[in-house]
């Protein structure tokens, strides 16, 4: 058995090498610790897209190309592991180069990358991005995420809290109790008493955007009302989680 396994491994190595040598141009995938799965070339070097280009159109020419090279198609363009063959294509650049595309998006290599795993071109000029195997751009986050995943914003004074709870109770009675029960015991919707409400971000977004069988209430409720009802359900029926503020709610809109 062991011998068989060794032979099988050896054969698959041969097969991989053969693909790399015979098939000219390869598009494969790699996983980056921070950016996730993205496209790479046959040597494992990162492939990029330029946001000036659009689907099936090359706009990145001349100065835009300094330090960058279109990923040229030589012979057959083949899909490596995790790449959809039906999304591979080529486009003729104005300079005559046949450039590999993925879902119509032209692919490039960066001169500053030397080894697999390098993503030194990522985010440069605010227009060079990675591309995932679904054909979507991987961009730097547009705005920093709120740092605290749970809890947070819990320092309301005693009077303030009473007011927020009052707002929340009113909202709850009008919008929530029909499904979640007048004591949070559940009904058409899940029980909130003893519910998993630790994650303030999740709870706020559930109220704003809905989900499961729950409709969205972001249109009906303003930030104060959302903060009120989220605080109310997190502090009623034996639940004891931190209050949330309208300012925090507004960051999730």
């Amino acid at each position, binding site marked *: 058995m062991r011998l068989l396994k060794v032979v099988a491994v050896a054969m698959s190595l041969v097969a991989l090498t053969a693909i790399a040598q015979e098939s000219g141009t390869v598009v494969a995938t790699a996983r980056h610790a921070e950016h996730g799965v993205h496209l790479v070339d046959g040597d494992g070097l990162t492939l990029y897209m330029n946001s000036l280009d659009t689907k099936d159109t090359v706009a990145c020419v001349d100065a835009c190309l300094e330090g960058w090279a279109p990923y040229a198609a030589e012979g057959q363009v083949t899909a490596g592991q*995790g790449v959809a*063959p039906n999304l591979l294509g080529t486009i003729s650049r104005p300079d005559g180069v046949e450039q590999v595309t993925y879902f119509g998006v032209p692919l490039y290599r960066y001169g500053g990358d030397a080894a697999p795993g390098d993503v030194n071109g990522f985010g440069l000029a605010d227009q060079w991005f990675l591309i995932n195997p679904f054909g979507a751009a991987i961009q730097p986050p547009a705005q920093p995420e709120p740092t605290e995943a749970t809890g947070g914003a819990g320092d309301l004074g005693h009077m303030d809290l009473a007011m927020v709870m009052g707002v929340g109770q009113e909202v709850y009675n009008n919008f929530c109790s029909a499904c979640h029960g007048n004591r949070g015991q559940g009904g058409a*919707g899940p*029980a909130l*008493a003893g519910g998993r409400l630790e994650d303030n971000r999740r709870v706020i977004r559930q109220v704003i955007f*809905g*989900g499961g069988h729950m*409709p969205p209430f972001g249109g009906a409720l303003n930030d104060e009302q959302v903060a009120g009802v989220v605080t109310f359900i997190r502090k009623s029926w034996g639940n004891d989680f931190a209050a949330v503020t309208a300012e925090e709610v507004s960051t999730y809109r």
Partner: protein
Amino acid sequence: MTFARRASAKRIALSVAVAASLVVGSAQTVEELTNPAPGEWPTFGRTLDNHRFSPLDQINKETVSDLRLNWSISLESAIDAQFSPVVYDGVMYLPAADGATAVDAATGDRLWVYQVDLAPNTPPFTAGRMRGGLVVFDGKVFGTTGDGRVFALDASNGAELWSTAVGTLDLSEGFSAGPIFADGKIIVGPAGADMGGVNGRVVALDSESGEILWTFNTVPAPGEPGFETWNPPTAAQYGGASAWTPGVYDPVTRTVIYGTGNAIPWWAGAHREGDNLYVASYVALDIDTGALKWYHQAVPREEWDIDTINTPVVADLTIDGQERRVAILALVTGYVVWVDADTGELLQWEGYNPEFTIHLGYDENGKSIINDDMRWTEETAGEVHLVCPLRWVDYEPAALDPERGIYFRPNTHECYEMANNPPPAGWQPGESAINAALTPLPDRFDRLGGLTAINAATGEVVWDFPVDGYSQRSGVVATAGGLVFMGSADRVFRAFDSDTGEVLWQQRLPAYIAGNPISYAVDGKQYVAVPVGGAGNIMIARQTGAPELVTSEVMVFVFSLP
């Protein structure tokens, strides 16, 4: 609202004489799970092909009037109890979202409890519900947890032998269903697409080591067959097609069949075109490799929350004069379809809901006909559409009486008004991607819930019993005694005459019933067990005539003759 449970496994001396009718053996074999002894119920559907049929007949049409409570027990938790007990060698094993409990099947005395602390970010749909059942095989008990673990325990004392993290908790992927057993492997379907946009999967683990043997992606990854049915391809990166409910294994064709849920987001519009394989489908996989053998897609490019997840039944049936190995698939869209278990060929289909607005039947190629007028475009976003039925069946398992050739199908005439909208801006994986409003229409038809006895070969209705009041979400067990047992949300546990649908016995219990009854024997005595109570989430009630739903901690009630 949480109930304290004994945290440590307790070993209690257990002396159960093996009944004469039982095959001897403390270590179960594949053969014993394929053809269980008459008194045993070792996996979710008793047999691997999920017949939910007990060959016991001590409790029968003549004796059932003497049926009485033998024992009951509280499991001291308040989840949605949508599961089935399993019994092997005088011990009953009960699943929970956070572990398992073993009790003496003749007395209810607790033998051991295995309990884990669920991760704090366990999604509510998997922290608060359990479907399917545990698997008893080779002296081990196999189960799943709400936070995505698959575990194996020593059946004698509940000690953990291995635990494998399968679910991606960051994307709200956990388990709402227990495992199934297939050829020495443990098969699981992680859930959670609606919560976080995770990709549905069917995963096989080695029962000895817990090692993952193969994974089938129910939304194909780039490069996998079916990926080309997502247009644009970016629409395939949001997941969907979760396997919320146990599948079935057919040992004859060596096929694992799982149903899959809706696409993510619910919204289609210009966001996703194509058939969107394998959402709202049954996928049939080769047990050795996990490779796709066939699929049956109920609703291509679904956009109405079409969870096609009801556990199939596989049986030998004579259809149009030809003996075949057949998978019976009950669709959420109101149909039962009969397909060849090995090839997926559509043999026949029949609609059972009083009204159909989305899935209108099948064309000559066996492909579903969908009413495109009920789709939304960017211009018609937010319009209210009648989705009928939305949930003719959900998780509740049917039974097949092979002697009578009757398929007993719990079902619900459940329609909704739905207004669908594009997902909120800035949505990212790990968050709910649903932006739809749903209004149930519980009083649209003569009845809401019911039990329909269907000729398993022809599809003809033999009888129909209206439970009414509520959706029917408890499964059934059929017995050789000519009886079918079913609990309902009206708190009544009923025994029906299998041939006529007449109620021969009934008992009102403390809380609503959404679990699945079984029948088994210990020391030559036949028992009928049913899980009762729970949190009561997503139970639709009639506006007229339904008493208020009674929820409770989860309990098990067990009946026998005196």
